Each structure stands twice: as C-alpha cells, then as structure tokens.
C-alpha cells in the first residue's frame, strides 16, 4: 500500500515549473526602439518586438505554409524597457523569449538624446537571457521610424529580422558599410566612455539599405553625426572595420573600379609630448581590377604603376576626409587612437585621458599622417575591351 502511494506520488505530482511549450514561446528575433515623446527629462519609448510564428514559416521545400506573415510585430509604449516587456506579456499569451534576438534597431531620435542610449542598453547587458552577439543598428531618422523597418515584407526572406541580419552578413565586399557591431563589443565601449560607431540602416521601399556609420560621442553617449558613404569607406580603411570593398579610381579621367580584397592598417603614435602628438596610419591594400572604362591595356607595367599611384592617392584622400571630419566637426576618436595610447603609451594616456575629446581636445590637435600602398593583384579574365575594338577599326 505504501509503495502504491509512493508510486502514485511520483507519477502524478511531478511537474516542471519551467516547462514552456515551444508554441508558447514568443521568440523575439528583432526589437526596434523609437522615441515617442519627451517631457523634461522623461522619455516615452516605444518598443516593437518581432515575434516569430514558427508554424507559418514552413520548410524551405514547401514554401510558406500559409498566406499570412510568419511573424507579428507588437508595439508598446512606456518609460522603461522592462515595463514594456511586462506590458507585452499582458497582450499576448506568449512570453517574450530573447535568446534568439538577432538585431536591435534604435531610431535616430533615441540615439541623439544624451545618455538615453546607455540606459536602453543596460537592460540588454543585464538580462540573463540576452546574448552578447546580438547586433545593434541605428536608423536613418528622416526616412522612417525604427518600427516601420520591421514592417517591410521582404520577398527573399519571410522574416524582416532575419533579412536584416543576412544583409549585415553580406558586408564582406562592401567597404561603405562597417562590420556589424554586437552588444558584447558595445559593453566595453560604454563602460569606458569610449566613442564608438554603429552601422546605419535606411528604409528604401520594401528594402533596407545597410550603409554609413553613426558616430557616438563617448562621454555624452549620444549620436552626434553620421559618416556618409565615402567617409565610412575612409573609416573602414583606417580601422579595418570592413574586410574589403570597392575603390573607384580615375586614371586619365577614365574610371577604373578596384576591388580591395584585403587591407592591413598599421597606426603608430609618435611623440611623447602630449601637446605634440603625431600619428601615422599606413594602409596596405591588395586589389583586383573588376571594371575598366579606360582604353589602355592593363597588362603593361607603366599603366599598372600609374593605376596604383592613383589608387593610393584616392585611398589617402578618403582617409584624410574621414580624419578631417572626425577631428573637426565631430571631435570624437573612433579611430582607436585612445586604445593605442592606452595599450602602448599608458603613462602618456593617463596624462591626456581627461582632455582627450573635450577640454584641451588632444585628439583634435593630433597630427595624423596617412599613407597607402596599393598592389594590383589581378586584372580579371580579360584585358581591356575598348582597345580591342580600336584595333578592329
């Protein structure tokens, strides 16, 4: 009898507190944060979560199993993100589950408010569920709100959140976009009050364009400006933030497009005197010719030298442009100069630390020289098309 009771206890009273059926998990793949209202120091934020509905995604071979979208976007507004989370819990039967969160989209208005960005990020580094590999992007404020980006209906990928993530993976041949920034990287920058950059996305109809770089000022933690295509390319060259990309070079007025397959940047800081800091940035670029508007044969050495020289000038010009903008308009160091000082010239760094981006503004006074070395590796499968036509005439 006793054994019988014992067995029935084992079989009928066991349970698991934390059992959540997969259908009940609201798997969040993307979050968008918008600023709704601002009164004095109080902000009202809007959080939009994109929840996947696994049943509607379907298998690749069968295609989508229903006409409806395989996701829902839920928006709530409130003061803190965790309270928004709670509100969301009250609206659906599903529990937001953030372990698969791929992207956090921050609207430009939010990013522009001083210190608000850090407060938002706090919940993402504090929550045990969050993963440090979640990517963070900002939107282009004029085009649309962050939440509207989650409303697009991409043809190639049923889930907008996934689409944006895949888009960022394609950055390897595009130097006008920087590599995705993940929460883990950002954590350190925020702690150290370092200036940092975040990639930007822009809504273009039913597509999203991933380009440019938003520059954040370290001590105020706010977006102070955006680097455009060319400046981002210069930044990529200076910081190796992008693994390659295109370089447009004019040789004798004719456009030649180079594909940078690899580049290595070496920045060195010279001068032990804090008022007289000098840095040199040397970039070595390996490139292939991928498109040629010119009419000379690419297979002669003189032309190659000329092309390389022009390419070097172009790269240097791009970098200078970026440096001018950063030292002049923005006065923020996103070139990693402070890291180099911290690592290799620690004592000097301690002297300039408090006056790096403000006060004496040592960063802006720094003299940065750039030089580029371009090596053309391949010309492609054929020589100049134009020339052959000329010969035929």
């Amino acid at each position, binding site marked *: 009898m006793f054994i019988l009771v014992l067995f029935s206890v084992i079989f009928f009273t066991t349970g*698991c*507190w*934390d059992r959540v059926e997969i259908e009940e998990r609201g798997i969040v793949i993307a979050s968008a944060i918008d600023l709704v209202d601002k009164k004095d120091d109080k902000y009202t934020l809007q959080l939009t979560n994109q929840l996947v509905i696994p049943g509607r995604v379907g298998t690749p071979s069968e295609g989508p199993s229903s006409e409806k979208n395989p996701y829902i976007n839920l928006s709530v507004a409130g003061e803190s993100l965790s309270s928004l989370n709670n509100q969301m819990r009250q609206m659906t039967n599903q529990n937001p589950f953030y372990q698969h969160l791929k992207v956090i989209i921050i609207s430009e208005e939010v990013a522009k408010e001083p210190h608000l960005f850090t407060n938002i990020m706090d919940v993402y580094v504090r929550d045990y569920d969050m993963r*440090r*590999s979640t990517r963070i992007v900002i939107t282009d404020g004029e085009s649309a709100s962050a939440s509207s980006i989650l409303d697009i209906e991409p043809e190639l990928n049923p889930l907008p959140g996934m689409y944006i993530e895949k888009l960022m993976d394609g950055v390897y041949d595009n130097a006008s976009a920087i590599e995705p920034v993940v929460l883990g990287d950002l*954590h350190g920058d925020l702690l150290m009050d370092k200036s940092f950059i975040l990639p930007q996305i822009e809504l273009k109809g039913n597509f999203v364009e991933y380009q440019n770089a938003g520059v954040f000022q370290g001590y105020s933690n706010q977006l102070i400006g955006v680097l455009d295509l060319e400046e981002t390319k210069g930044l990529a060259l200076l910081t190796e933030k992008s693994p390659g990309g295109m370089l447009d070079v004019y040789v004798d007025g004719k456009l030649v497009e180079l594909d940078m397959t690899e580049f290595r940047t070496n920045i060195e800081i010279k001068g032990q005197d804090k008022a007289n800091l000098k840095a040199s940035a040397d970039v070595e670029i390996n490139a292939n010719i991928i498109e040629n508007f010119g009419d000379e044969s690419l297979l002669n050495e003189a032309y190659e030298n000329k092309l390389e020289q022009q390419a070097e000038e172009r790269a240097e010009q791009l970098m200078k442009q970026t440096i001018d903008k950063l030292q002049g308009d923005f006065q923020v160091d996103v070139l990693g100069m402070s890291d180099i000082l911290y*690592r*290799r010239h*620690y004592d000097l760094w301690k002297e300039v630390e408090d006056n790096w981006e403000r006060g004496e503004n040592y960063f802006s006074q720094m003299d940065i020289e750039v030089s580029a070395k371009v090596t053309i590796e391949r010309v492609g499968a054929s020589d100049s098309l134009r020339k052959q036509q000329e010969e035929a005439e």
Partner: protein
Amino acid sequence: MKHFEYADEKISEQEILVAVPSILIGVGILALPGQLAEPTIGVDGLISLLISGSLLILVVWLISKVAASFPNQEFITYASVLVTKPVAAILTMLFTIQGVMVSAYVVRVISDIAEDYLFERTPVEVIALCFLLIVVYAVSGSRAGLFRLNMLFLPIILIIFFAIITFSAGIFEVNNLQPFFKTDFTGYLQGIKESALSFVGFGILFFYIALVRKTKKAPKMAAFGMGITVIIYMIIFIVSVGVFGNITSSNLIFPVIELAKEIEVPGGFFERFDSLFFVIWIMAIFNTMCMAFDATVFALKSVIHVKKMKLILILSPLIFFIGAFPEGYNEVEKFGSFISHYGLVLAIGTMFLLVVILKIKGVKKGG
C-alpha cells in the same frame, strides 16, 4: 540500505592529485576573472595569480607533508600528539564549521545561478533542496567512492574548460591584453589577495591524507593537483581578459558564464554552448560540495562518536538553512568573502602551528 562495499576505504596518491582540483574548481572560478581584473590593468592580474598560486602550492605541500608524516593517522590523532588533545579538538571543530559554511555557500550560489540562467520560475529552495539531496546521497555512500567519482568527473570538466578556450580563440583579441606591467604595487597586492581567496577548501587535506595508502608521494601529488588548478585559473583569466578586455571582465558578475554564452561552436550547428557548460560545471560544483560535506562529516565523527548517517541527517538541514540565510546578492557575496577569509586563515594558521611544533618535537618515525 545495501551498497557495494569496496575492499577498503583507502585511496591512492593519484586520487589525491585529482581530489585537489576537484575540491577547488567550483564557485570561485566563475567570478575570479572579474575580481582579479578589477584592481589590475591588462593581464597584470596574472602575476598576482602566479604569486598567490605558488605560495598556496607550497602551503598545500606543507599541509600534506605534515599529515603524511603520520601515515594512516587521522587529524585528531596526530594533532593531539603535536598540540594536545583539546587544541586538536578545537581545530577539528573549526574545520567542521568551515565545511558546513562552504557547503551552505555552494548550495546557495549554485541555486541562485541556476535560477538566474536556467530555471526562471522554479523556486530557489527547490533547486537547492534537489542539489543538497543528491549530495547527501553521495556522501552517505563510500568515502573512497567519492574520490573515484572525482577521478571520473575531472577529465570531463577539463575537457569542457579546454573547449571554452579553443572555441573562444576566434573572438580572442591579443590587443586586449595590453598594456603590460602598468599596475601599481597595491593593485598587485589586492590581486594576490583576491586570487588567494578564490582557492578555498584545501584545508581538508589535513583529514584526507590519512586515507592515502602509501603517503610517501602524497605531498608531491597534492602540490601537483594545486598546480593544475592554478594553471587552469590562469588560462581562464587570460581568455576572459582577451575576449572581453580588462574593464568589461571586471564589470561582469560571472565572466566565465558570459564566456560560455558568448562563444559559438563554428558551423552554426550548436549555437548555445552555455547549456553544455552548465551541465558540466554543475558536476564540478557537485564534486566541490561532496568533498566539503564529506570532510565535515569525517572531521566531526573523529570528535563526536555518532553514526555517520546520523551526522549527515543532522548537518544537511543545517546546511540548507544557513544557505538560505543571506538575503540578496550582496549578502551572499559577503558570506562568501567571509568563508574565504576564514578558510584561508584557518588552513594556513593550522599549517604553521603544526609545522613549527613538528620541527621542534621532531617526527617519530614508524607508526
């Protein structure tokens, strides 16, 4: 209850080698990289770790040496010879208190972490109780069996730690380690203190050497075991600083857990490495706790002659309630820090006392 009886309750020297890392690798290592990174700059904490580690290897060697001078004698027996019976009894009781507190602390920390990262809605008390009951079951069995369990688990634990190290190679940045040697003197001292406090529990070697069949090589083996632990701590510290950087490491409460969360096994096949890490790490904690609890029972039994099972049943509710006592993260932290100080002072103090008196009186050979 019937269970398999081993031929004798003796262990080999190799089992001592394995027991030392099993005892030490537990709760401390999860937070260590952060605590060590805080007072130091770059990977300078490594120097502190190396100094405190080497000192403690010496301490462990001396402890085992003292205990091994009296082969097959229990602590109370040889301590009575050296420092009279009442003092020996008091020391034993102090070690018992340490064992109870360590067990309580471990139960508390493991259930807190499990609650935070794994079971959101399961009550903490239930997790603690489950864990405690399993440990009680293990401890009520054969003592030599526990050592064999250590031998079984340690390789698995080492494999998972090396897996973390290997898979984090992709996100490891050598630049994060710089600058070198920029910490000031007080920073190093602070680092030595923090790292020394993370090695808690080696004091129970006073008791366990008595179980070793041939004690000749035991001190060397114990020191080796300590060496392995120090090396693992050092590697974990380097990896943590290399991946997160010094400042982020010191900001994270448990850098090692975040490390397990951060790394991804290449190929996208296995995104959540942390799930595996938790399983294995709980095994490590289980070893720590079993040894602490068992040592407590072992020590207490040598003073109070009560049946082992009775002692376990008296101690386990005590452990459960002491563990439930601290409120909130800060109090748990304070409790942990108190135990670390207590354990370190007790082990080193006892060691000094016994070594000095042993030198004065001289070792009586034979026995």
